[in-house]
């Protein structure tokens, strides 16, 4: 391309170069960039070019507004920080002065120039080049109007742990409908498995059950337990969600929750979920007495009738004829405006840390198993005993950081394990009087009243050994080790190797993302980190939103955290949703991709590339269409289309080529010097 558009400066362009204090000015000669632009880019339509200490300040914005009014600017280019931060600010300034906000272009000379370079001359020249590119590009901008979409007042909450329950109740209390979808037969999540909660040691069930009951009976909450979301269509404000209600084989209309079926069912099964594998349930079961809803489910793969064709004991004894072997899965479709994901975490499987012997050595327990041991409703009625079911331990070793802060497994800290291990130490003292050893790398007791709890456990006489345990073994070396589990550890404070014989070992295992986190993220069109935690929109400033409009996250899906933080996130997510609902509609960026149907060959290459699931394909006409409300304008499909049929507003081919042209216009002085030398 040799001929330039915008001849004779049809557009009147204003250029603003920000110092950002010394953030930019320290590495880029900003004054030089501004004077250069006024001189060299005048033929491209630049009528005014200024530098200013803080463009984002009110005074900086007013500068732009004033110039638009007085100089009759038709385009604005701001060379400052990343558009992520201040694009909205400068667009608003333009709009205030009556200029269509989409005629403003932000050029990043901070993240992409001053922060990443060390040569001031070169950095100044690069700033000129990217600025020149921005000027060429802005010429091709078009005035756009934001898309307005109405917000459906209903909300979907996925996951009925404490975070999801909190979110559901808050939205429902404000008077808006909520669908709460829980995969297991009852809501409650991990919290329902605990006996006591740190740091106050209040009874987990006592504080959780009221919330579960509220969620189960709230007039605005429709609870789908034993259910899963199978499909999500649509976009913010207007999602269509399909929920599969798995067949319970119990008629909820008739069942009174009396529990006779469970009593009579002859089939005992190890309960891997609620009892963490440490206890049994029946083939027809409610996971725990306070379950919400109260209706049992029949576990088909384990039911004698379903497998062998005879039994039906439950049916025979049910006083209300509620057992229904014919029941089938039911699919329900609901409309919602926003979605909150609160699917929680899984416990790290310590079998892979083979040197700790979990699965081989009977008296090595996971933290969740230990929670069940201490729980009055657990398999031992709250008795802390060895795996033989009767023997009380006289010494217990608790290992912190199993699978956390270990580059063989997970680099991160699981946040709760130190406190949870202290809680265990306290419970062992209180209930058995056994000697307790805690093996820790660092003691992490941040947050309110946590360190005070640590002091208390110290005073109770727990023995703390700082060091990562090397091995747990039953191979005794000394007579006093016979019949014990021996913990081999380097005590890094005393600089000695220790072998400590104990009766019971508890592994404080890491929190890990749900095993199906990647599939769930894909279903809802949000991103998760490579290890599986869902990614928030901004780690500090937007912790419960996601990059996908209308989808929020709360609780341990986002990363390891304790109950107070999970509850806070549940409430925060619901506040964000309520704000949306009350606005009634939402303005969406008009920066969207569109398909030129006449050029589309129907090759479908773009179809699966869109990270936001915004692309649909019309089988009948063999063409692709992009849903403007879902599209986030990322440009992936534009680049992928071999027919060039897709173009994006704000990033059309024309604009991109013009920008490249602009970049090339700048003669790199120092390069020439280098060549001459």
């Amino acid at each position, binding site marked *: 391309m040799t001929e330039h558009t915008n001849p004779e400066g049809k557009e009147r362009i204003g250029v603003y170069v920000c110092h950002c204090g010394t953030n930019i000015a320290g590495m880029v000669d900003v004054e030089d960039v501004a004077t250069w632009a006024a001189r060299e880019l005048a033929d491209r339509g630049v009528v005014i070019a200024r530098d200013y200490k803080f463009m984002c300040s009110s005074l900086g914005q007013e500068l732009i507004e004033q110039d638009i009014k007085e100089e009759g600017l038709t385009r604005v280019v701001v060379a400052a920080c990343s558009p992520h931060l201040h694009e909205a600010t400068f667009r608003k300034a333009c709009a205030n002065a009556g200029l269509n906000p989409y005629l403003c272009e932000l050029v990043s000379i901070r993240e992409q120039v001053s922060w990443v370079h060390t040569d001031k001359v070169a950095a100044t020249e690069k700033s000129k080049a990217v600025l020149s590119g921005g000027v060429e590009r802005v010429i091709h901008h078009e005035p756009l109007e934001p898309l307005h979409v109405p917000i459906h007042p209903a909300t979907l909450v996925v996951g009925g742990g404490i975070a999801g329950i909190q979110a559901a109740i808050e939205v429902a209390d404000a008077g808006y409908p909520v669908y709460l979808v829980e995969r297991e037969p009852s809501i409650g999540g991990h919290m329902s498995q605990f006996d006591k909660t740190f740091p106050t040691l209040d009874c987990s069930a006592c504080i959780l059950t009221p919330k579960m009951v509220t969620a189960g009976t709230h007039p605005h909450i429709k609870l789908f337990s034993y259910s899963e979301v199978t499909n999500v269509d649509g976009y913010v404000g207007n999602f269509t969600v399909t929920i599969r209600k798995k067949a319970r084989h119990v008629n909820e209309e008739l069942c009174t929750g009396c529990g006779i079926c469970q009593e009579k069912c002859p*089939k*005992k*099964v*190890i309960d*891997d979920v609620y009892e963490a*594998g*440490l*206890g*049994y349930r029946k083939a027809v079961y409610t996971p725990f007495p306070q379950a919400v809803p109260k209706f049992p489910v029949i576990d088909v793969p384990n039911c004698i009738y379903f497998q062998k064709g005879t039994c039906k004991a439950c049916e025979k004894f049910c006083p209300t004829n509620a057992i229904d072997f014919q029941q089938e899965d039911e699919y329900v479709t609901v409309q919602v405006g926003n979605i909150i994901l609160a699917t929680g975490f899984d416990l790290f499987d310590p*079998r*892979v*840390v*083979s*040197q700790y*012997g*979990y*699965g*081989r*050595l*009977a*008296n090595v327990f*996971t933290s969740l*198993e230990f929670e069940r041991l201490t729980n009055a409703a657990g*398999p*031992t009625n709250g008795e802390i005993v*060895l*795996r*033989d*079911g*009767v023997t009380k331990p006289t010494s217990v070793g608790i290992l912190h950081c199993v699978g956390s802060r270990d580059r063989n497994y997970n680099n991160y800290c699981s946040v709760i394990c130190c406190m949870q291990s202290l809680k265990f130490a306290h419970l062992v003292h209180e209930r058995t009087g056994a000697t307790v050893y805690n093996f820790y790398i660092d003691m992490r007791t941040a947050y309110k009243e946590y360190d005070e709890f640590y002091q208390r456990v110290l005073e109770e006489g727990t023995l703390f050994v700082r060091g990562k345990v090397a*091995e747990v*073994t*039953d*191979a*005794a*070396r000394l007579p006093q080790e016979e*019949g014990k589990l021996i913990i081999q550890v380097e005590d890094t404070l005393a600089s000695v190797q220790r072998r400590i014989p104990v009766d019971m070992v508890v592994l404080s295992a890491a929190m890990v993302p749900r095993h199906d986190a990647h599939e769930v993220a894909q279903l809802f069109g949000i991103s998760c980190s490579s290890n599986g935690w869902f990614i928030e929109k901004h780690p500090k400033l937007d912790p419960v939103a996601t990059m996908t409009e209308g989808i929020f996250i709360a609780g341990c899906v986002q990363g390891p955290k304790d109950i107070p933080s999970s509850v806070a996130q549940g409430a925060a997510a619901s506040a964000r949703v309520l704000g949306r609902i009350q606005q009634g509609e939402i303005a969406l960026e008009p920066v969207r991709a569109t398909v030129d149907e006449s050029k589309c060959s129907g090759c479908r290459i773009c179809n699966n590339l869109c990270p936001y699931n915004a692309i649909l394909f019309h089988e009948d006409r063999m063409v692709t269409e992009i849903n403007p409300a879902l599209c986030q304008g990322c440009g992936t499909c534009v680049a992928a289309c071999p027919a060039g049929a897709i173009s994006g507003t704000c990033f059309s081919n024309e604009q991109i080529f013009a920008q490249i042209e602009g970049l090339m216009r700048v003669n790199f002085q120092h390069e020439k010097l280098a060549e001459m030398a």
Partner: protein
Amino acid sequence: MSKYLFYPGCAMQTSARAYNESMQEVLGPLGLNFEEVRDWNCCGATEYLGISTVPAYALISRNLALASRQSNGVKTLVASCSACYLNLSKADHYMAERPSLGQMVNVALAEGGLEYTPGTLEIRHLLDIVINEVGLDVVKERVTHPLKGLRVAPYLGCMVPRPDYEKRWSDYEYPDELDRLLKALGAEVIDFPLKTHCCGGHMAQISPTTAFELIRRLISSADNYKADVMVTVCPMCQMNLDAYQNETNHYFHTNYKMPVLFFTQLMGLAFGIDAKKLGFGRELVSAKEAMSRIGIEVPQEEPKTPARRKKTTGLPMPKMPGDEEETQ
């Protein structure tokens, strides 16, 4: 017949003669064809790398150079001794990871008209070949005389699964390859907690009392589990546990009589090969009594240690991969 290059190492001809004899017997049934590296030299065992770097790697690499020259398209070099296996892998790995070391070693090799490019050969342990190349299915097919009733303690030692540069082993702390192989032979395999602990290496010479303690731990643990024999995959482990057992007894006033055999010897027995051809009788702690039990129904004594392990009453044990489903 799959062809492999083979590095025997010094011990195979001397202290581990039984290993060599039994290995030669089972190669055929396993469909393995081993070609010995011509004029190989000692790998330096655990000593050479302790006092030098370039000379030690040059010593090892002469073998790699000879093997690659002889390879004729065969890429895999098999070692039967764990120390040799580790040294050969180590040289190959570090010559690639630290190019300057690789260069220096090659300068030295050039003095003898040799060269070696790291990565040319794939260095593997005999056990790895049996498990992953031959496969347990083939092994099972060859078994004609299952070792029914023989309680064995699978003992790998520390050098096979660690540091495992190529990630070939199931687990570096608690690998189960040898367990699975011995189960395939029909033996009753105990869950030996010290399976990757140290046998003492050259401590038997350097600091005998240190070695005696390490040997005692291993033997007494196997004895606690009522193992009839211990099974090793390494000449050095066998030598320490077998030849120094009497001395260890003497030192601690104990009276262990734990036969220590090579896995190839048991494989040979299970394949129906005559025990004489398999080097039986070369062990200092005789395996005669233990072996006489095979095939003869002996009342099973309940081992005292495993009482702490899985029990059918009480709380359920966590399920492990490969466990059978618990049925009510």
